C-alpha cells in the first residue's frame, strides 16, 4: 500500500518536473512528447500490462478504421479525378449527360433513375408506414395485434435485401404482371423501407409524453385532432429523421433492383411497361466496375463517390434535425 503511494508521489513529481521543462520545443510537440512519455513510461508490471493493452487496442482501432479510409482514398481519388476532369463525361458533364456510345458520357440516367425509384418508394412507403405506425401506436392497445405487427416489422427490417429483390420479382413482376421497370423497382424499395420507417415512427410517437396528449384532450380536443395536431407535431422531427435514414439506406441498395428495375442507358419514358426500365446509381456502380474498360471503372468510382456524398448529406440532415429538436423538446 505504502509502496503504491510513494510510487504515485514519484509520478507526480516527474510530471511536475516535465512541465517545468518547456521552452525548447514548440508547444504542441512538447505536449505530445509528454503525453507519449506518460503513456510509455513503465514503472512496474502493471504499467507494462497497461501499455501492452493500450498498444493492442490502438492496433485494433487502426484495423477497424482502415477499410473506411481505404474506401475513401480509393473512391475519393479516382472518383474526384472524374468529377473534376474536363473530358467527355467528366466534370459537370458527368451529372448532366447519359452514357452514350461506349459509355463515354455521364451517369445522368443513374442519378435520375435513383431519384425516380426512391421517389416512388417514398411516395408509397412513407404514407403507409406513417399511417400504420400511427394506428398501431395511438389507436390500439398493447396486445397480440400490436406485438405481432412489431415482430413482423422487426423481422422484415433484418431480412437481406436480395430477398426483397426476389420477392419483388416473383410477386410484382411475374405474379402481378407489372413487368420490370420503374414501378416494380420503386415498390420493391418501398417494401424495404416500410418496416424501418414504421418502427422509427412508432418510437418517435412513443417518445411523446402522455401528458401532452392529455393536455389536448383536456381542452376538449378529439382523439383525432390530438393525434394530428399535437402528437404527430411533437414526434415530427423523429419521424422525419427515420424517413431520411431509411431513404439513405434504400438509395444505396442494388440487390432489390437487379430483378425489378432493369437497366437503361437513357432516361425512362414511362412508369410501367418496357419504356420504364430504369438505371440506378448502385446498379451502375456494379455494372461499370465489372467492365473491362478502365475509364468505365473510373466512372464507377465517381458514381460511388456521388452516391456516398448524397447519402452522407441525407444522414447529416437527419442528424441535424434530430439533434436540434431534441434540444428544443427536453
Amino acid at each position: 500500500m505504502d509502496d503504491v503511494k510513494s510510487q504515485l508521489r514519484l509520478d507526480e513529481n516527474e510530471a511536475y518536473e516535465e512541465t517545468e521543462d518547456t521552452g525548447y520545443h514548440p508547444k504542441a510537440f512538447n505536449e505530445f512528447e509528454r503525453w507519449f512519455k506518460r503513456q510509455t513510461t513503465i514503472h512496474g508490471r502493471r504499467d507494462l500490462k497497461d501499455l501492452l493493452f493500450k498498444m493492442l487496442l490502438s492496433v485494433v482501432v487502426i484495423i477497424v478504421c482502415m477499410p473506411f479510409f481505404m474506401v475513401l482514398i480509393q473512391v475519393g481519388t479516382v472518383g474526384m479525378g472524374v468529377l473534376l476532369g474536363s473530358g467527355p463525361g467528366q466534370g459537370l458533364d458527368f451529372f448532366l449527360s447519359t452514357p452514350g456510345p461506349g459509355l463515354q458520357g455521364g451517369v445522368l440516367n443513374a442519378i435520375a433513375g435513383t431519384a425516380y425509384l426512391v421517389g416512388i418508394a417514398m411516395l408509397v412507403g412513407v404514407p403507409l408506414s406513417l399511417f400504420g405506425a400511427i394506428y398501431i401506436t395511438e389507436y390500439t392497445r398493447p396486445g397480440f395485434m400490436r406485438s405481432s405487427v412489431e415482430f413482423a416489422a422487426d423481422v422484415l427490417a433484418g431480412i437481406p435485401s436480395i430477398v426483397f429483390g426476389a420477392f419483388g420479382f416473383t410477386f410484382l413482376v411475374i405474379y402481378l404482371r407489372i413487368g420490370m421497370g420503374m414501378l416494380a423497382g420503386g415498390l420493391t424499395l418501398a417494401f424495404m423501407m416500410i418496416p424501418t420507417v414504421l418502427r422509427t415512427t412508432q418510437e418517435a410517437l412513443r417518445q411523446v409524453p402522455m401528458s401532452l396528449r392529455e393536455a389536448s384532450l383536456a381542452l376538449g380536443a378529439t382523439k383525432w385532432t390530438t393525434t394530428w395536431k399535437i402528437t404527430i407535431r411533437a414526434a415530427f422531427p423523429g419521424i422525419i429523421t427515420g424517413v431520411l435514414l431509411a431513404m439513405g439506406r434504400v438509395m444505396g441498395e442494388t440487390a432489390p433492383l437487379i430483378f425489378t428495375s432493369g437497366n437503361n442507358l437513357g432516361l425512362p419514358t414511362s412508369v410501367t411497361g418496357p419504356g420504364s426500365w430504369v438505371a440506378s446509381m448502385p446498379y451502375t456502380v456494379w455494372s461499370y466496375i465489372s467492365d473491362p474498360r478502365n475509364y468505365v471503372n473510373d466512372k464507377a468510382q465517381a458514381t460511388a463517390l456521388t452516391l456516398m456524398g448524397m447519402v452522407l448529406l441525407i444522414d447529416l440532415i437527419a442528424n441535424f434535425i434530430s439533434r436540434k429538436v431534441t434540444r428544443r423538446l427536453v
Partner: protein
Amino acid sequence: MAKGTTIEVKNLNTWFGRKHILKDISCYFEDNCVTGVMGPSGCGKSTWLRTINRLNDTVGSFRMTGEIFIEGKDIYAPTADVYSLRRRVGMVFQRPNPFPMSIKDNITFGPKLHGINDGDELDEIVETTLKKAALWDEVKDNLEQPGTTLSGGQQQRLCIARALSVDPPVLLMDEPVSSLDPLSASKIEDLIVELKKDYTIILVTHNVQQAFRVSDRAAFLYLGELVEFDKTAKIAEAPSDPRTEAFITGRIG
C-alpha cells in the same frame, strides 16, 4: 366571464382493472373557492381529479360507478358530451407540458378547437388569459417564441393560461407546483388565490402546508377513502379523524 359552478359527487367508485381505487366517495365542491385535496402518494387523488373531466375514459382498464353532477347535469350520462364537458373543466398537470409550438399557439389551440377563428378575438384571448396567469408582462414581446423555451415556472403559468383559454368555470390542478422551485411555486400559489374569484378550483397536493395556505375547503383522501371533507380552518385546527391528524402532523404519508 365564467363564474365557477358547483360539482356534486355521489357514491363514486372507480377501478383500474380489478384494483379498487376510489371507494364510495360522495361530496360537494362549492363554487368560487379552492378545495384542496390532500393525501399520501397513490391514494387516488389524481384518479379522482381525472374522473371530473373524464380523462380516465382514455385508460382501457378504467371502470366506475356512481355519478358526478356539474351544474346539476350528470357528466357520465349516456347523452353527455365529453368534449363540451372538457371545455368547461380545465386541467393543469403536475409537470409543465406546453405544446411544441409558439406561446401564442399554445393559447389559441383551445379556442380554435371550439370554433373561434377571428384573429382579433384570438389576440384578445391571448392577452387576457396570459394576464390572468400573471405571465403577460414576461412574454408579451416574444409571443412567437416556442413555449418550451420558457423556464419551468413560466411554462407552468403558460399551461394555466392555456387551461383558462377556453374559459372554463372549473379548474382542476394536479400538484401544479410540485416540480417547481419555491419562488415559482409561491407565485403560482398567489395566482390560484387570485383565480378563485372566477373559478371553482380543485387543487391536488400532498403538501399539507400548501393546502392550508391556499384552500378554503379541504379533503383528505386515504387509500381511496374520503376520510375528511371540511373547511380548511376546521381541519387545520381540529381534524375529526385520527388518520387526518396523523397525516397533517406528518406521521403518515
